[in-house]
């Protein structure tokens, strides 16, 4: 394999690499977030349905789904909001000054 840089220069290559990285990350985060939303509703909906069947309260299915959705949203905010912000470098958190995009 030649391993050449297509003659485009290291700066362009770095930009392209960063774009590909953010694309892969975005794809992963997007599907993970939708996974949490659906799984939260399904998991706690199922738990609610099972408990509801045992105690003969059919309302526990929608309640379980809503609880699951709330848990998912809370966790998404924690994971990608709170933890995500903490993981970012300080310079990126405070200002976009010098951003040459």
């Amino acid at each position: 394999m030649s391993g050449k840089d297509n003659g485009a220069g290291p700066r362009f290559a770095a930009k392209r690499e960063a774009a590909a990285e953010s694309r892969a990350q975005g794809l992963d985060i997007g599907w993970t977030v939708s996974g949490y939303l659906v799984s939260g509703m399904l998991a706690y909906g199922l738990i609610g349905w099972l408990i509801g069947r045992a105690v003969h309260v059919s309302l526990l299915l929608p309640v379980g789904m809503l609880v699951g959705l709330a848990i998912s949203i809370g966790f998404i905010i924690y994971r990608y909001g709170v933890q995500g912000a903490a993981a970012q470098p300080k310079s990126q958190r405070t200002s976009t000054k010098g951003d040459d995009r």
Partner: protein
Amino acid sequence: MTGDVNALASGGCHIFSGCGFPAPGLQDFEWKPFFTIGSVGFTKPMLLAILAALVVIVFFWVAFRSPKLVPRGMQNIGEVAILGVRDQILRPSLGRKGDSYLPFLVSLFFFIYIMNVMELIPILQFPVTSRIGFVWPMVFIVYFVYLYLGVKNQGAWGYLKNMIPPGVPAPIYVILVPVELLRFFVFQPFTLGVRLFGNMFAGHLLLTIFTIATWYLLSLSVGLIYAAGSFALAIFVFLLETLVTLLQAFIFTTLTATYIASSLEASH
């Protein structure tokens, strides 16, 4: 293909001829077997899947059977293909340490792409991945690699524990377990397979609808205008599908790369 489409093509079934529109449907994804082995029928999608595998194997074998330092001909194309997967799919998720997974990802990407793109090749004109039975084995292989690498690198307990990010209070941890388990073992593999299948299924159906409609509407009447509109849409969908076939192979392989990355080390 189906009786409907054959009847349409041979019988001159057009608008205003008293013939109803033979709408395509699920029957267009069912194939009569060429031959049967026991109770298993060997159908066109099976033949196309084998053909896709052969195309990938033969192409890369021809390209790299005697590699030169300065690439020429097929080796050039092969290198562009491999570097494309490496730089656009593997490196963004796995970095340089993931280069050992390049053969797996290259095979996966091109196998899926060739199976998808068969939709657009005359005579073949069927995307193998629009039959979900061909998608699940790939999802199974990806998930097997994903779980195997996760358990190998982090240990079974560590792998399960790392699904939930550190720093979460213990009660929240317990609350999250059912959500995380369902997401990991059900939602994630399900969407990985259904995304590919659904896109290819819908694309093929759209292409079939507009192609059949063009033929059906073709007549020396106002139907000619409708036929022209339908033909334009068929061309549009065809062009769209050239993008979708590539995009779906890209998404499947990119997600596989991100799964492998999260198996190699805790992603949080």
